[in-house]
């Protein structure tokens, strides 16, 4: 209890509450996990920067008591790249939604991954454009309904973490709002990983997604999210056929590679010397 109060005082802009999110929205759960994760990293509050794009989830930046940068739609990683290069000592967490990150921001996403710049991307994936009222995103599963796909979308979704891997990201993990403790740990792991880290957080949007697709309310959505998930470790021991409709959670992969900002500053000091 004491810890929660401390976190609330320190890291939440309580005056900015109540938040704008709908009742039952998963954004609050993910944001809380993020706050706890930041606390656990032990970073100085002054060094932490929250960068976000545009969308429901990106509004989180406004509620967090750090230096916060709420950018334009899809561009959060590009702003963050400039800031990180200017001030490599800062710890940047970049919150994006699924449409924000993978549609309009797709180019910035793959190039941040390619550079392996030390940014911690937290993508809150609710499979829908929530703020604009429920249009399909590149992460909406095929067949699901949206206001712009009233008969179900025909498009195939990205697997964000496979995309990240192909583009060169050196850390990728997936968590779910239904398991906030695990999510918190994954964000910590991503934050302490040197290089571009991607944490995909599946999160229920009962209002713009759940209702239209008859997935029930927040509680039902969280429950089915939990039921259909399986940890990486367990998945390794499970038959492929059984994994077909499962969401694999945990650290999907992690490896080391040169980090861009560090390489850049090393190269310029080498040249000088």
């Amino acid at each position, binding site marked *: 209890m004491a810890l929660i109060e401390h976190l609330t005082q320190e890291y939440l802009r309580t005056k900015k509450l109540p938040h704008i999110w709908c009742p039952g929205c998963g954004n609050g759960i993910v944001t809380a996990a993020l706050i706890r994760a930041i606390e656990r990293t032990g970073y100085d509050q002054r060094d932490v920067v929250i960068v976000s794009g545009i969308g429901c989830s990106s509004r989180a930046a406004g509620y967090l008591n750090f230096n916060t940068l709420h950018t334009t739609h899809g561009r959060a990683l590009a702003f963050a790249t400039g800031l990180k290069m200017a*001030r490599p000592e800062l710890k940047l967490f970049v919150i994006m939604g699924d449409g924000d990150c993978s549609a309009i921001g797709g180019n910035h996403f793959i190039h941040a991954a390619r550079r392996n710049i030390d940014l911690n991307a937290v993508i809150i994936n609710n499979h829908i454009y929530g703020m604009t009222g429920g249009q399909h995103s590149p992460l909406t599963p095929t067949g699901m309904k949206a206001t712009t796909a009233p008969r179900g979308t025909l498009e195939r979704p990205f697997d964000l973490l496979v995309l990240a891997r192909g583009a060169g990201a050196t850390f990728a993990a997936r968590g779910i709002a239904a398991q906030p403790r695990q999510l918190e740990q994954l964000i910590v792991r991503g934050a302490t990983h040197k290089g571009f880290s991607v944490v995909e957080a599946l999160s229920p949007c009962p209002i713009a997604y759940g209702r239209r697709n008859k997935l029930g309310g927040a509680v039902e959505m969280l429950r089915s999210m939990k039921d259909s998930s399986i940890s990486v470790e367990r998945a390794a021991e499970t038959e492929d056929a059984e994994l077909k409709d499962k969401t694999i959670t945990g650290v999907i992969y992690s490896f080391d590679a040169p980090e861009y900002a560090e390489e850049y500053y090393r190269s310029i000091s080498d040249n000088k010397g």
Partner: protein
Amino acid sequence: MPETKPVLMQGNEACALGAISAGVRFYAGYPITPSTEIAEHMAEKLPDLGGVFIQMEDEIASMAAIIGASIGGMRTLTATSGPGFSLKQENIGYAIMAEIPCVVVNVQRMGPSTGVPTAPAQGDVMQARWGTHGDHPIIVFSPASVYETYYLTIAAVNLSQKLRQPVIILLDEVIGHMREKVLIPEAGKLLVEKASDLVPSDWKPYDEKGLTPLVPFGFGHYYHVTGLFHDQYGFPTGDPPQVERALDRLHHKLEKNRDEIILTNYIGHKEPRVAIVTYGCTVRSARAVVTKAYWQNRLPVGLLSLQTIWPFPAREIEALAKQVDVIIVPEMNMGQIVGEVERYARGQAEVIPLNRYDGEMINPDQIYEQMGRWLS
């Protein structure tokens, strides 16, 4: 001002060197003709100065990256040309709204669209003014020579810092690409105005009482930066009186510093009958004409050249219109600044457009011919 030996310098290089003299240490860009030499110079020079050069994945990202770096406390610049300038508009608007200093160079080429990538044109004048959406203020310089490119870049950096406002340099392809003899002040002797490092504890990023210097991220002031309308701490608001005040704030800071922003130059007769008003490389042709007509032939003509085109030098035009019968406005487009000249001439003088849009400069003969018609 101490001056060293004259050197031969290209316009794009002068822009890069001016930026560096003014303290720019961060450049993000994307290759595009005819601005690429600026990026190349920055890539060459910035690393040795401990600065950052980064080639981004696209023009949108370049603009975003310089804003990010400015928030980190660096002086920043990016350069592009028409197609890239179109892409940068989104985040130029962001920088205006969030009051983040940065300098954007557009080495203009002939458009629309891909147009003629290497042909000069002055078709982006209105885009520079209104390219990003919303009712925003903007500062735009238009240099007429390599030397002007150098010092206007310095002025742009300093003004953008002081006013926390993006400044655009609308360079002509002709100026960007040509080499010219210039006298560049000795490095290090230039006065770089510095925003105060001393920040009071009650500092607010968007203080209602007036403009405050930007405190970079990482110093314990946990403010919010957003493209939404915001209160004095940067937090979103949709409250009508606050929204109105916030927009007024953006405009007032330019109006208050008008004298520092508006740069124009008049040469010619004390009591002219015919005046030319122009900007950028077209000033060169106009100056050739006025030099001949006034200095050699003592004709009652003059030239008002505009180094600043936005905010528009309305007062200067008003005053000029009262003196002359005719104002000729040569431009390498179908007529963009001429509309503003007409508006502020307020019927006091006849305003005559002189346009060329075939990818070539307006030459002195064309201006001379037009002027001659009004003198006889």
